[in-house]
């Protein structure tokens, strides 16, 4: 099981803050994960419509979409950051 956490409008559109998912074997990278999630329901399709703007963090560190998610304990999906 992999723990997924969502923030800001990604969280609002998916409709939950976090969940634990069993990911199929063909989901190997962050980009694969985004594509897989979009098959799970309309709320994911809406939240992840513009894949290129979605930021990904694995175990609380930023990664590119091509990064492997193998061994990840926690994967976060969120929009571009607007702090400061």
């Amino acid at each position, binding site marked *: 099981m992999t723990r997924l*956490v969502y*923030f*800001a*409008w990604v969280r609002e559109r998916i409709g939950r803050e976090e969940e634990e998912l069993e990911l199929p074997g063909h989901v190997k990278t962050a980009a694969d994960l985004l594509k897989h999630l979009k098959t799970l329901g309309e709320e994911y399709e809406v939240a992840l419509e513009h894949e290129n703007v979605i930021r990904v*963090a694995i175990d*609380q*560190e*930023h990664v590119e979409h091509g990064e492997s998610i193998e061994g990840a304990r926690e994967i*976060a999906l*969120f*929009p*571009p*950051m*607007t*702090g*400061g």
Partner: protein
Amino acid sequence: MAVSAEIPVVVRVQRADFDAAAETAALTARNRQIGAIVTFTGLCRDEGGSLAALELEHYPGMAEAEIRRICEAAVERFSLQGIAAIHRFGRMEPGENIVLVIAAAPHRHAAFDGASFVMDYLKTSAPFWKKEHRADGSESGWVDAKDADDRAREKWQR
């Protein structure tokens, strides 16, 4: 490379307000190599009266870790004698503090650059998101990331 244990790196993410003067005094106490301190405070604007409040969401754990990575990079790059970054979360009304950065160094250029570097990276890499609550009660919305903030960060990569 790890930052020397003697150089204070203070990172906090908190709901409560902060006291810039007290934080500055605590960061720089007893270090006589410091000749320059730059203190930056970011506040909530009212956007010409249209904004009632900001709601700051963050990713607990990663927010602290990311700010610490940025601060340690600044200490290394600008040979700072101390750095502090405090970022608030929750609801903030116009006039309230949002973020504090204090950079201490032997000379002014390093202190100015250190504070500026930390803010430029913090804005684009630290996991915080602002939601606006409008004064007229109309629907609130998430603040869009600005290209200008990306460009401000990129200037440090040249």
